[in-house]
């Protein structure tokens, strides 16, 4: 497991050209199944997304199979790219209506793409408690 916050800013290199194509700026996740769907590369209007299946390795750099694997964010991803519904910094809300702090960090399995424990300003939350992630909150089982 690697902490997501440490991956932010890591350079992204395309295997087919050996060119740096950007840097990791965020992660696209499906918290209901506890998995990474893709990675945000770059910020603002130049932000692109690469699906996690195109990532060949994560270490000192994030290597993707080809520069052509970078694509425009979908409508559903556009909010995350703009910072709305992003996991890091999100409010954590228990389904009983109690706020549990904000997401400081999350562990990620860079090989399998599984999400791990979320660290909040008030403690930790195991991934089996995740219910949904929206622009207002990461909702977890109370």
């Amino acid at each position, binding site marked *: 497991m690697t902490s997501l916050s440490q991956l932010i800013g890591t350079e992204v290199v395309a295997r087919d050209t050996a060119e740096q194509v950007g840097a990791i700026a965020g992660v696209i996740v499906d918290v209901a199944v506890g998995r990474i769907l893709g990675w945000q590369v770059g910020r603002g209007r130049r932000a692109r997304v690469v699906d996690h299946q195109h990532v060949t390795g994560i270490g000192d750099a994030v290597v993707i199979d080809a520069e052509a694997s970078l694509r425009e964010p979908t409508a559903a991803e556009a909010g995350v790219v703009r910072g709305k519904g992003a996991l890091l910094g999100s409010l954590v*809300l228990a*389904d009983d209506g109690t706020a549990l702090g904000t997401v400081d960090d999350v562990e990620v399995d860079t090989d399998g793409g599984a999400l791990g424990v979320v660290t909040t300003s008030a403690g930790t939350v195991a991934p089996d408690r995740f*219910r*949904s992630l*929206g*622009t207002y*909150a990461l909702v977890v089982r109370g």
Partner: protein
Amino acid sequence: MSVTLLLRATEISHRPVVSIATGEAVADVKDVLYSPEDGRLTGFTLNKHGGLFAGPLKTALLLDHVYAVGTDAVTVEDIGAIGAAGGEPAPRNRNVLGNEVLTDGGTALGIVTDLIVRGGVVGPGVGAEVGQVVGYQVRGTAEGAVEQLVPLPYALAVSGTHLVVPATVQPFLTTDLADFGGAVADFRAQLS
């Protein structure tokens, strides 16, 4: 032993209504709907989410469609919970703020300034008590009077201007919400 969550109704107002399915705030609570005869909230009126100047929604959120009433949000399973009230008659509501609380011995305890509501996850067992109004916050009419919390019985005599409670409530008045759950339980135990 679980701790009983008690909330002031004014604290629930302006809280977001959050969909558990999507993590989105689908509305904000505008106000509570209260039926004194039933001793519980029947639901909430709503504003669009997004601050004090967001407009009201025409649909109410019935308590039966709420997942939980919490300290930081009201949660629903999904946005359909709000639509579920559409087209149905408006829930019964009576505004008791400003009404005078009298004991059946004739003592005026004060003017209602807030409702004390049981929070938590709505459901069977203890969850069936969520939304129950277990007390009033009242302010005495004398100069310098402090606000006190008055435990309520399950049933309550209500008119348009007065609320009548048993005189035996007086030893159970408190100023501290943290102590109030015990005061309500003790008061109700000596009634039965």
